[in-house]
């Protein structure tokens, strides 16, 4: 119950902080939250285990390519979100 209330308060604040600003700020917060959830999903098991195979890209192990690619993708996504704020 407590966790649920904290999450509710957190989400309420996220939305509130955006409501006072503008429509676009709300969108930014939604995008930022999405990136966080996406990264949490991508950089944890079982997702990382999908790249933990013998497969290689020009001898570079798949897991290394996987981690560094999504890492860079996260940077680009965050840059795109915040460049016009």
């Amino acid at each position, binding site marked *: 119950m407590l966790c649920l209330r*904290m999450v509710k308060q957190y989400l309420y*604040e996220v939305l509130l902080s955006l409501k006072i600003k503008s429509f676009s700020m709300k969108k930014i917060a939604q995008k*930022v939250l999405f990136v966080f959830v996406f990264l949490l999903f991508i950089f944890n098991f079982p997702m990382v285990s999908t790249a933990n195979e013998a497969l290689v890209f020009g001898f*570079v192990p798949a*897991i290394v390519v996987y981690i560094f690619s999504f890492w860079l993708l996260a940077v680009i996504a965050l840059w795109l979100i915040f460049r016009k704020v």
Partner: protein
Amino acid sequence: MNWAIVIIVSFLYLVLLFILAFWAEKKAESRSLINSPYVYALSLAVYCTAWTFYGSVGRAATSGVDFLLIYVGPTIAAPLWWFILRKIIRIAKVQNISNIADLIATRYGKSISLGVLVTLFSVLGVVPYIALQLKAISESFAIILDEHTTQPIQSASLMAYAFYIVIVLGIFTVLFGTRQLDLNRKNEGIVFAIAFESIFKLIAFLVAGIFVTFFMFDGFSDIFRRANEQEILSHLLKIDTSHLHKPLEWFLVSASSMFAVMFLPRQFQMLVAENKDEKHLQKAIWLFPLYLWLINIFVIPIALAGKLSLNTSIDADAYILALPLAQKNFVIALLVYLGGLAAATSMVIVSTMALSLMLTNNLFIPIALRAKLTNYLKDDSWAKWVLYIRRLSIILVLALAYLYLSFITNVSLVSIGLVSFVAVSQFAPSIIGGLYWKEATGRGATLGILLGFIVWGFTLVLPVLVSNGIFSKQILTHGFLGISWLKPHQLFGLDGIEPIAHALFWSLSFNILAYIGFSIFSVQSSQERNQAEFFVDVLKHGDAYENRLVWRGTAHQKDLENLLIRFLDMPRVEKLMEGFEKRSIKNTLNPQEKKAALVRFAERILANAIGSTSARMLVASVVQEEELSKDEVLKIIQESQELKKLNLELKKADNQKNEFISTVTHELRTPLTSIRSLSEILSDNPDLEEEEKQHFLHTVISETERMERLINQVLDLEKFESGKQKLILNKQELNTIILEALEIYRIVIQEKGFYLEVKLFQQEIWVKADRDRLLQVILNFLSNALKFAEKNIWVESFVESGQAHFCVCDDGKGVPPNLEEAIFEKFFQAENQNIRKPKGSGLGLAISKKIIQYHQGLIGVKRSNHTTKFFFTLPTNL
């Protein structure tokens, strides 16, 4: 390499650091160099210590890609900074919070004991980490001199080298970290120097990486191919998933780095205390992960290259330095050595500064105040005394780190770094909980942190002491006091999980359970409740902090002024008090509210010098505070919130009134000017042609009618708004009224060449309405459609779910979605001329809305498929 060269280059590097810091301080008098999002983002890279520089390679050489979790964790957490850190930065700015102990103590009612606890645990958790940086500097020094790399750290020459480094860094931190008493002013010199070090260490690492990857080998593929060929190295190219708890370990280690990047004292110092502008966070959110990406891109290739080409007796932590040395490339080796020095010194400087502030504000000053040692101080020596304590604290922290260094034996950089991560993770529940859960109490936070640290000590520190021979090894094998479920690495029988994840799991579990449990079963003090409200709602009404006055007692202005004079000069205190008086008059505070505001004001000013909790203690020594019950606190908060809400509504109403008057007078002035000019022409020129006279008179009449219309509309609206308007409600047939309105506009529609389509789906629609008023609304809709339609107008009426629907659609430009409500406000178009050119009074839709509301109906506008639809509904139950 010749030791003299290494010593001279190291010395020159440190001199450069001093020059840069001095320059930044000097420059700050005219323009702040650190007021840039790029400098801010670079200063956050203090996260990358000697551990990153040497330890990551070491860990990659022993356990593969696992080391990346320390950097992937902060990348995952970066988006959350937008919410969590923005909130903390705002709180810190309003309440003058300068360190993590102050933040936690302030949230839980400015609790002195909690501040002391957090400070002590921070010192315990971070001092070994500082010691390890000194160890890294000494070891890199030994390697570059081509000494025996497996030599124990306690060798006299290495300890002497570490000693000199400690002295130089101590002088640097004292010089630039204690320049001013005011904690609100940023440490320009230190921040700029740290940003420079971040660039320097990144360049050094990249140069080393490029050298190893492309000059020693033929690129990434070559290194990975050769590693793949050796069975002994192939395990480094995959995550070892052979044991059951790997996913949990992976998650826990990345979670601890997510917490560490925000709550390590040095990170908090740079992220929050040294933040110049909240907006800088927006760039740091993506720049900092990019920095981490860049500095890690060559870690695995260097680790594999070391394994492939260096002697197995060389410590893997030293590969980055040993590889160029093995190739006799002394320039790159020297650059790498300096990069490592930059990484270690930046961490030592910022951590020492952050810990010294915590020790001063949350431990030494409260102890001195409680023991009444300050009674011996003269009024004008307080400021100097605080600065002396800060300087002594810096020396103390460095001395403790040096002492620790002289005792430790073979502990790797990564392992001790992770021990620190687990330590600071214990603050996360109290901080995050405190930001989002108003009922969390100081008792819950204290017991949570205490239990978390006990478990941390038992599961991570005790084994280190055992390995150093201080305690018996039996504790590890048979458990504490021989109890088998009290084994530090298999607590409560949890086996098969690596020590860091194991410690984090149990310490955070105990911490969170105690925090929540004791918060539920304990009661908040009035101060705690007040702070909880502020922390949780800071984004809603953080600006109104001074107006939320949950305080009752006796306070004398003179006593508080005398307190302030101890830290500030007389003219400044007078100026501050003058400003306070003005604000009190403006906010119309009653005497009790003014006292409360004064106490808070004094606390805030003092917090600039000695931190929030010490400031509260000092103020408490000259005022008499009455304890408020929970109900009283809640009542005051509720009243202040209601008052704030009412004030906001009043302000809004006042603004609307002013806007209304301004628009009405503007609208009246235009025809009035025209009437006056034409009347003057007629009066001054009696010989005007009759035709011209008639034309002028016709315009005067038409402008008078326009004025009359406007005045009638204003009066109409006023009647509706004041509730004086009476409607004559009768049974009316809606379609008849619609057809009547269409007949009025028939000729205009034909003249303008519009295509009109009328769809009346039911033959008769009966509603209870005021016929003339309803006709007014329909005419208003049609008139708007005629003004804005391109070619087509559609009129529809039908009954659905007991409601009569009427709508007028047109193919004009329409209304943006965010203005669909605002368009029904008074004079909307007059102040939004960029959206539509005004063609009427701007009151038509506002009056229509009131009429429909009086009929218990709904009115609105929608845009879909390039069509704008104005509609209203009316109940059909007669």
